[in-house]
C-alpha cells in the first residue's frame, strides 16, 4: 500500500461511515441519531440517499481520474444536493458537506500519510475533493434555479386561463402560418 488511492480503498468502509455520520450530523441532533439507523429508502429517503452518495463519492476517489466516472458520481451528488437544497440550509451548509469528507479522510489516514510521507498525493486528493465541492456548488445553484422555476411555473399554471382571458391572447399556431 503505497498510494493514497490504495489507502483510501483499504479504509473505504470506515471513511464512508464517518463521512456519512458527519453529513447526518448537520441535521438536528435527535434526527441525526434516528436517521443514522438508515434503512428503508421510502420511509427514510434522506439517510439512504446520503449513504449511497457517500459510497459513490469515496469509491470514485479510490479510482484514477476518469470523465465517465465523474459524470456518474455527479449524479449521486445531485441526489444528495437536491435534498439539501430545499432543507432550510444556507448554501455553504447545503453544498459544503463535501468538505466533511476531508475531515473523515484526515482523521482516518493521518498516521499512514505521515508514515508513508505521501503529502503530494494527499494534496492532489484534496484537490479532487475541492473539484467535487465546486461541482456541488453548481448543482446546488441548479437546484435553487429549479426551485424558482417551479415557483414561476406554478404561478403561471395556476392561472393560465385567467391570463388567457385577461390578455385576450391568441396562441401562435392557431391560425395560418406566416
Amino acid at each position: 500500500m503505497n498510494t493514497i488511492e490504495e489507502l483510501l480503498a483499504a479504509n473505504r468502509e470506515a471513511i464512508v461511515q464517518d463521512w456519512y455520520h458527519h453529513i447526518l450530523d448537520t441535521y438536528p441532533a435527535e434526527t441525526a441519531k434516528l436517521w443514522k439507523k438508515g434503512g428503508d429508502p421510502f420511509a427514510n429517503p434522506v439517510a439512504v440517499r446520503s449513504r449511497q452518495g457517500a459510497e459513490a463519492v469515496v469509491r470514485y476517489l479510490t479510482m484514477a481520474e476518469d470523465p465517465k466516472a465523474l459524470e456518474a458520481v455527479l449524479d449521486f451528488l445531485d441526489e444528495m444536493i437536491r435534498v439539501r437544497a430545499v432543507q432550510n440550509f444556507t448554501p455553504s451548509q447545503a453544498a459544503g458537506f463535501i468538505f466533511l469528507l476531508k475531515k473523515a479522510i484526515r482523521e482516518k489516514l493521518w498516521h499512514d500519510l505521515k508514515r508513508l510521507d505521501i503529502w503530494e498525493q494527499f494534496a492532489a486528493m484534496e484537490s479532487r475533493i475541492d473539484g467535487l465541492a465546486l461541482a456541488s456548488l453548481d448543482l446546488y445553484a441548479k437546484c435553487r434555479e429549479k426551485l424558482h422555476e417551479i415557483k414561476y411555473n406554478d404561478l403561471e399554471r395556476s392561472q393560465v386561463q385567467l391570463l388567457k382571458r385577461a390578455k385576450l391572447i391568441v396562441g401562435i399556431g392557431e391560425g395560418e402560418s406566416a
Partner: protein
Amino acid sequence: MAGLMTALLAVVALAAVAALGAGAGMSEVFGIAVPYVAVAIFVAGFIKKVVGWASTPQPFSIATTGGQQYSLPWVKQAKFDNPSTPGQTFIRMALEVLCFRSLFRNTKLDNRVAEGRVAYGSDKSLWLFALMFHYCFLVVFIRHFRFFLEPVPMIITGVEFVDSILQIGVPTLYLTDVFLVVGVTFLLARRLWDPKLSYISLANDYFPLFLILAIALSGIYMRYVAKVDVIAIKQLAIGLVSFKPYIPPNIDWSFYMHFFLVCVLWAYFPFSKLMHLGGVFLSPTRNLPNNTRMERYINPWNDPSIKPHTYEEYEDDFREKMIEAGLPVDKEA
C-alpha cells in the same frame, strides 16, 4: 433525561417509603388506609374521566379509513379497515383493542439488495412487545383474584394452571411474570435507546413504566425469594374486600412495598396517560363507521343559523354582468 431521573427517583422513593414505613409499625396505614383511599381515587377518577369524555359530544363522524370503502357491488370492501355498518365497526374495534391492529401496520420496507429485489418486511417489535406486555398484565391481574375470592373460582385456577404449565421451580414459575418483565423492559429500553422516543418522552412516560416494573419485580421477589406467607396475605385481602380490615402478623415488608406500589398505580391511573385503557374505546377515528353518505350523523350543537352567502345575494352582486354574459338570472335588472 430530567424526566427519566425524576421518574426513577420517584419510584425508588415510593418503594422505600412503604418498605421502611411498614417495618416501622405503620402496617395499618399501608395495609388498610392507603388501599381504600387509592381504590376510591381510582374509581372516582376513572368514572369522572370517562363520563367527561362520554358527555362531550362528538360533532362529526371522522373515521380514519384504512381500506376500500363500501361502494359499487363489484368493488370488494375492506370491511374491517373501512367498516360501513355497526357490526363491522365492532370488529374493527375488537381488532384494535384485542390485537392492536394499528400498531401491526407498522410495516417497514426491507431492501434486499443481495437478492436484487425490494421486499416487505415489517417493524412489528413494538406491536409484539406491547401485546405481550398488555396480555401478561391482564393474566397477572386475573390471577390475583385468588387472593380476594374464597373459594377460588375454577377460571382463576385454570388460568394459574396454564400459566405455570412448565412446572419450573418451587413455587412454580408463572410464565406471565417473565413475559411481563420482558415486555415492560422492552418498552422502557426503546424509550432510552430509540432517539426519537427519548426526545419525546416525558417524566409521565417513564414513571408508569418504572412503577410497573417495580411492582412486577417486588411481586417476583415475594413469591420466589422471600416466599411470603400467602395465607396471611389472603386474610388481609379478604378483610379488605369484605370491609372487615384485619392485619395478620408476620407479613413480610416486601408485601407492603408491593401493595403500596400497586396502590400508587391505582391512584395515579385516572390522571395519567394510562387512561388510554378507556380512551381507546371512545376514539372517534376508530369507533365510528364510514357510512356518512348513507346515514346522516347528528351533531348536537350544529348551528342552524349559519347560512350560506345565498344565491340571491350573489345575483344582486353580479346581475348585470351575468345578464350581459347570457347567464340565466332569477330577477331581471
